[in-house]
């Protein structure tokens, strides 16, 4: 129950509210009580003064009945508990309760304590010291008493009726006691009121906080959790909607960004994985089909040898043998496509290969009234490639172009050559440790290519770093939190052999340098602290700029809608229904990749009523150099 952020927040806020409101109410009630009591005290004092004044004259005259009468009358007030006058010796000489008359008070008793604490006679006392609150008997209400000393005045000592010694300062004490029943009732109701108010306030705050937490914290958090679960379950396109402007909204937006990026990269990976799994499929099929093919081939050839005298049979058997041999080639092609075979490369002239490919489609082109325009680079260098495979690439592209045009149109074929710096275009296809363990990790791809995996130790953390396999690119992936610039140790994930070159220093930052052997192609070196992007591959740099041959094949056909552009290289993607297998472009992709080349596409969808011509250009770039693919 306390697992939820919202509940926790509500709980914390509620506890704080309870404490604050509780303390506040407590002091508020305390203060109110005090004020009430002070009021009662003042009132009592006034009353006691009035009694004293009212009886003053009667006292002088020593008119005892009259004094008793006044006291009785005052004592009738229900708020007044008792009015009594004591003489110096503590004998009650007047009282509104007749039973009290003549009683002696113990000077130690509570009512006398203030004055007689030190056995000292009563003199001038402050009002506070003259009042006291006590409970007369345990089951009755509290009582407030106030004493008022009656001082010896000249008029008293000089009066002729009953003389007091002039030396005596205090003649007696007037003691008025009030019942506090009403006041207590009021205080109690105050307390109840305060408590009810506090509870109401706390509940109200709880509800308000609860509502806001639910609206602004709970729901967005729930949505975020839901979104991560969706993505984890594979629904990578899940988007968080209802994003606020606060931090949680920001979090949601970066979450959406993240899934978008994830989606893009997975799209890229998709193609290579699909090719790989298709390869596996092809390999499996090849294996299964080759056994029965062996039987057919053997038995038919066997019969062929046995029936030399039966020309009719020979003819038929020859067909079987021939077709079986053809099947063998097809299966072999499937294996080639699955990249299980190395292309048979030799020096070849792309312009000549194009001639041959065009000759194959010449008839079809003529029938569809399509013209093929050639723009040949006369200085096109020869490249090392598998001529048959490259011819198949061109053929597939021409057939696609013809399909896209239908009738009447133009296909332009242009060749050219360029040279590019090896950085940013050369893939590191092989990398090993000093003990020749491969560091290439096909599980972790960067930009669709297998990365270079190394063990990394940094500040006590241990994990893996995946280097970008393109020389000069730095889309490295760090499996651990890397404190850039700290001294990292890089080593082989298999044998832990260090990959740090202790004799070298990074020319940019002076830090350590990794040095990874690339079989037959020198070493890749780079900044091992990853503070900067220094990297060197002497072998490739020495070869200078890389020369490329480029072939652009443009048609003015229907074009490819944007949403299909990312799919056309996928195996089995076709918009041609029964007429297309959807393998054409994926085979092309495999062949070009096998040649270390790249193929890209640009397309515009035509809209003839609007007079807008469509068209598609496939551009292929093949490396001229003889750096054979490492398969």
């Amino acid at each position, binding site marked *: 129950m306390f697992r939820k952020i919202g509940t926790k927040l509500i709980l914390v806020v509620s506890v704080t509210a309870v404490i604050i409101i509780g303390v506040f109410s407590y002091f508020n009630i305390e203060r109110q009580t005090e004020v009430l009591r002070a009021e009662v005290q003042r009132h009592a004092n006034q009353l006691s003064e009035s009694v004293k004044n009212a009886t003053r004259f009667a006292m002088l005259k020593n008119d005892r009945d009259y004094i008793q009468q006044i006291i009785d009358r005052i004592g009738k007030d229900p708020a007044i508990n008792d009015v009594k006058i004591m003489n110096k010796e503590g004998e009650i000489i007047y009282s509104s309760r007749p039973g009290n008359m003549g009683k002696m008070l113990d000077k130690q008793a509570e009512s006398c304590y203030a004055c007689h604490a030190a056995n000292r006679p009563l003199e001038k006392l402050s009002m506070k010291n003259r009042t006291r609150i006590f409970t007369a008997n345990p089951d009755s209400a509290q009582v407030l008493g106030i004493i008022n000393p009656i001082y010896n005045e000249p008029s008293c000592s000089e009066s002729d009726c009953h003389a007091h010694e002039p030396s005596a300062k205090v003649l007696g004490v007037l003691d008025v006691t009030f019942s506090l029943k009403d006041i207590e009732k009021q205080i109690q109701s105050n307390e109840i009121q305060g408590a009810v108010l506090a509870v109401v306030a706390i509940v109200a705050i709880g509800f308000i906080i609860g509502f806001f937490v639910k609206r602004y914290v709970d729901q967005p958090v729930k949505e975020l959790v839901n979104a991560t679960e969706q993505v984890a379950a594979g629904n990578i396109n899940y988007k968080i909607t209802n994003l606020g402007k606060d931090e949680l909204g920001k979090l949601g937006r970066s979450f959406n960004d993240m899934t978008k990026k994830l989606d893009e990269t997975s799209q890229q990976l998709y193609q290579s994985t699909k090719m790989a799994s298709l390869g596996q499929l092809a*390999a499996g099929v*090849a*294996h*299964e*089909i*080759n*056994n*029965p*093919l*062996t*039987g*057919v*081939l*053997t*038995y038919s*050839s*066997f019969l062929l*040898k046995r029936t030399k005298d039966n020309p009719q049979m020979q003819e038929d058997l020859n067909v079987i043998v021939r077709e*079986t*041999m053809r099947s*063998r080639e097809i299966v072999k092609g499937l*294996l080639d496509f699955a990249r*299980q*075979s*190395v292309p*048979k*490369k*030799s*020096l070849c002239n792309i312009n000549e290969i194009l001639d041959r490919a065009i000759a194959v489609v010449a008839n079809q082109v003529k029938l569809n009234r399509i013209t093929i325009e050639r723009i040949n680079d006369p200085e096109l260098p020869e490249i*090392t490639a598998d001529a048959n495979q490259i011819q198949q690439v061109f053929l597939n592209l021409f057939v696609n172009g013809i399909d896209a045009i239908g009738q009447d149109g133009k296909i332009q074929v242009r060749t050219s050559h360029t040279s590019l710096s090896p950085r940013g275009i050369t893939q590191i296809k092989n990398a090993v440790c000093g003990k020749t363990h491969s560091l290439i990790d096909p599980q972790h791809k960067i930009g669709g290519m297998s990365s270079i995996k190394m063990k990394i130790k940094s500040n006590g953390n241990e994990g893996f770093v995946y280097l970008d396999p393109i020389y000069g690119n730095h889309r490295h992936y760090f499996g651990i939190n890397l404190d850039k610039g700290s001294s990292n140790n890089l080593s082989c994930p298999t044998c832990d052999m260090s990959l740090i070159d202790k004799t070298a220093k990074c020319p940019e930052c002076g830090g350590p340098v990794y040095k990874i052997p690339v*079989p*037959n192609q020198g070493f890749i070196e780079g900044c091992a602290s990853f503070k900067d992007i220094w990297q060197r591959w002497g072998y490739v740099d020495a070869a200078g700029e890389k020369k490329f041959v480029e072939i652009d094949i443009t048609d003015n056909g229907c074009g490819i809608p944007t949403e299909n552009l990312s799919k056309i290289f996928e195996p089995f993607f076709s918009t041609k229904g029964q007429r297309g297998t959807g393998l054409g472009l994926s085979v092309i992709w495999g062949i070009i990749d096998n040649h270390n080349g790249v193929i890209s596409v640009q397309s515009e969808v035509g809209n003839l009523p609007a007079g807008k011509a469509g068209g598609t250009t496939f551009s292929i770039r093949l490396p001229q150099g*003889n750096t*054979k693919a*490492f*398969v």
Partner: protein
Amino acid sequence: MMKEHCNILVIDDEQVIIDSISKIASLEELTVDSSLPGKVAFEKISAKDYDLIICDIMLLEMDGFQILNELVKRNVDTPVIMTTGYSTIENAVKSLYLGAIDFIPKPFTIDEMISLIHRAMRYSKLLEAKKKNVESVLLVPCPSKYYRLGYSCWMNKELDGSVFIGASDFFVKTVEPIKLVELLNTGEILTQASPCAKFRTDDELAHPLYSVLSGNIIERNEKVIEQPELLEKDPYFDGWLYRIIPTEFDYEMKILIPCSSDRS
């Protein structure tokens, strides 16, 4: 006690392969025995005396390479040929590296299989004769600084980095007399453990030679084409086939056998 003799043992889990090889062998009047992969195979091998074992690589119970390893461990010197429907360069390389004398992808033609069996039977006899020190087999020793792939193709690196390659004496002796030598052209590319030359013999059979290294052909020996007997007379010097620039030298060297090891 003499062990019962049989010419060929086929280890495969596909009956059609066993039947096919039996059919082909019957053309040459050879006897064929078959076995499923696993223990049974080893029982058969120790019970009978075979000239040749043909073993499939992709077997369910036991992978063909395991069988190959096991045979080496048990000191069985019967020549082994690997075959598979999943023919890749890697499988070919691995087979030869682990001691198979040859590799044949499925589906094979009758002629391919017959030429293979011919070589293997000759190989078997040569081995037998060598063991018994028969004078009539005069083997030309492979120079000690040479390296070879399996028993068939040798290489020798020159100071300038180029490499001469050719067919070993042992291989030539399993196919001679050679009537015709077919070579690839200069500029073409060789791939390790893929065919690089074809030797045709009088019986209309073609024997492929698997290349020892990958590389670009920069020169080929035209003299061998004119006089195929050069191969038999001087297989390690005048009988060379190609000069190449190797492309994966360090990497591929690891699976080659130094000829110096032949002398022990």
